[in-house]
């Protein structure tokens, strides 16, 4: 088990390193003089030279790269050109907001998606199935900001139940989470449905029925439980997508999240912000992927046993049963 975790951790670090180098190199090709971004329109020649010296912009590529990575390891993500303030605190301040929308959106989406997917798979071709497929298609095609604005129109302006922007109280989170949730549920429903359809035809489902098991237990314990791996993959990809991708929803609800921060950096050509922002998002994504890998190991016994998860626990269980047998005098 330890081997599995360590192996995954090493992959994570390598991926991260490669990403940083790649992104840094990409940023090298951004045209323009960073000094102009820092100084704005009224820049004079001497100012430009001074800035170049101060920010060490003329050092060779390798030197700057290693300096950046060295700083990263110590937690220093550089300073924004525009505000000359450190980037790391800003990112960490915005992370909880984006994470809240993303995670809760996914949770809502998963709940809806699993239920809808299972029901429509079990009752394939029924009216319920067709309606749900239609809603899925709608949710997947509707642009998120349009959906968000629609919600605001209905719930804020027409009904006055919920606030239009902000993230202060629980009430404020309902609409943003609902928007993302609805969108996410579309993909998850589709994946659940197709995965369940495959699984429900399997022989072991028939065995379960032949045992006299209830339909509900058959569908959930035998069906969904086996169908879950591809669904988990989709959930993980969606979370990763939403880590930087809630930009539009955040815009509509004026929630200062990660995506908007990086986007603003792009608009103002604030290279350190873009670079560090994207590196940060990649870092979060690798963590999410890592956690999903761990989850796979727990859900799929084939992976579990290959890597020796729960071997000790299994042996203990068998041993207990053995003891009980002896005690009970079979």
């Amino acid at each position: 088990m330890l081997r599995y975790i360590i192996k995954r951790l090493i992959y994570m670090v390598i991926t991260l390193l490669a990403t940083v180098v790649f992104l840094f190199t990409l940023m090298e090709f951004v045209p323009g003089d960073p000094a102009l971004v820092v100084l704005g329109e009224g820049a004079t020649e001497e100012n430009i030279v001074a800035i170049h010296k101060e920010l060490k912009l003329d050092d060779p590529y390798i030197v700057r790269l290693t300096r950046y990575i060295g700083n990263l390891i110590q937690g220093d993500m550089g300073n924004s050109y525009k505000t000359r303030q450190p980037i790391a605190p800003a990112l960490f301040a915005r992370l909880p907001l984006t994470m809240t929308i993303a995670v809760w959106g996914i949770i809502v989406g998963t709940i809806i998606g699993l239920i809808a997917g299972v029901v429509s798979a079990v009752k394939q071709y029924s009216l319920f199935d067709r309606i749900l497929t239609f809603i899925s298609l709608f949710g997947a095609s509707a642009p998120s900001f349009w959906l968000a604005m629609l919600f605001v129109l209905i719930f804020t302006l027409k009904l006055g139940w919920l606030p239009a922007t902000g993230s202060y109280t629980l009430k404020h989170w309902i609409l943003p989470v609902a928007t993302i949730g609805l969108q996410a549920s579309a993909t998850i429903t589709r994946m659940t449905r197709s995965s369940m359809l495959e699984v429900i035809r399997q022989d072991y489902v028939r065995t379960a029925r032949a045992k006299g098991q209830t339909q509900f237990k058959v569908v959930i314990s035998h069906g969904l439980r086996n169908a879950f791996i591809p669904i988990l993959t989709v959930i993980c990809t969606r979370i990763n997508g939403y880590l930087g991708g809630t930009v539009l929803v955040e815009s509509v609800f004026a929630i200062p999240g990660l995506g908007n921060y990086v986007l603003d950096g792009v608009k103002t050509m604030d290279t350190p912000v873009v670079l560090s922002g994207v590196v940060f998002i990649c870092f979060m994504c690798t963590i999410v992927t890592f956690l999903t890998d761990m989850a796979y190991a727990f859900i799929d016994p084939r992976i579990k046993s290959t890597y020796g998860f729960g071997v000790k626990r299994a042996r203990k269980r068998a041993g207990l049963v053995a003891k009980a047998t002896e005690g009970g005098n079979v």
Partner: protein
Amino acid sequence: MRENELLSIENLEIKYILRRSTVNAVNGISFTINKGERVGLVGETGAGKTTTALSILKLIPEPPGKITNGKIMLGGRNLMETSEKEMRKIRGNDVSMVFQDPMTSLSPVMTVGDQIMEVVLLHNDMSKSEAALRAREMLELVGIPGERYAEYPHQFSGGMKQRVLIAIALACNPKLLIADEPTSALDVTIQAQVLELIAELREKFNMSLLLITHDLGVVSETCDRIMIMYAGRIVESGPVRTVYKNMQHPYTIGLFNSLPRLDIDTDRLEPIKGMMPDPANLPAGCAFHQRCPQADERCAQELPPLTEMENGHCIACFHAIDKERSDG
């Protein structure tokens, strides 16, 4: 219902209703199984054997399948009129089934012990640990060391998986065990072991056995009676010795003739000419008449009924019936 009878099926008809056509899977079969009796159901692929077996447990997928006619009496109860809730009490408990392909018949995410425990808990009011104990016992009974309780199906070979499935089937001491080609997916040496196991346990628990197979040799070894199905109908049935010694139906004869024999030198095998008719498009009259060397006009138009001739030996063929009448 006679006292010794366990299962009695009368005029069972099962159809699969598809959009463009209707598949007539089972077309009016009747038979009985007595307590403790071992019955073999033989026929080629598509004859309707599995469908018949599934219908006993009412596991036919409801759309598109449908039992359009007939009665299934189990111990005096008409299963056609039994609610789903009651059926669940019967499945795994009074009647159990072992399926054909053990490789895919076990849930990959549950331990084998838990899968046995599941069926025990469904039909017995026990605590979890008691049920676990019973599961372990069943494992030992089918020849698997009890410590392997907590292992997963992918850690077992095909033969052992089948044993686990047998353990599941027998865990609640059913009165009738239906084994649908339990060894077709296994290799020959394992086949023998599994069949031996089934026989042993059947005797121990004194169950009735309905063994579905296409292997005539296996039937002769393990069964008391044999029923031969063709195109959804029983064409010949009776005590194994009787039928084997004195087969009458041209299909049965053709089947046996197509078996390779050790004592005769042959270059070529003798299959039955033609193919089984499309169940969506059954011909009028005897289903076999298009392939039968003895067929005549009557066969093409009239359906021969399953008629009893000598003791328990029944045949559905005009020629055989006529011959018998003229003889006897």
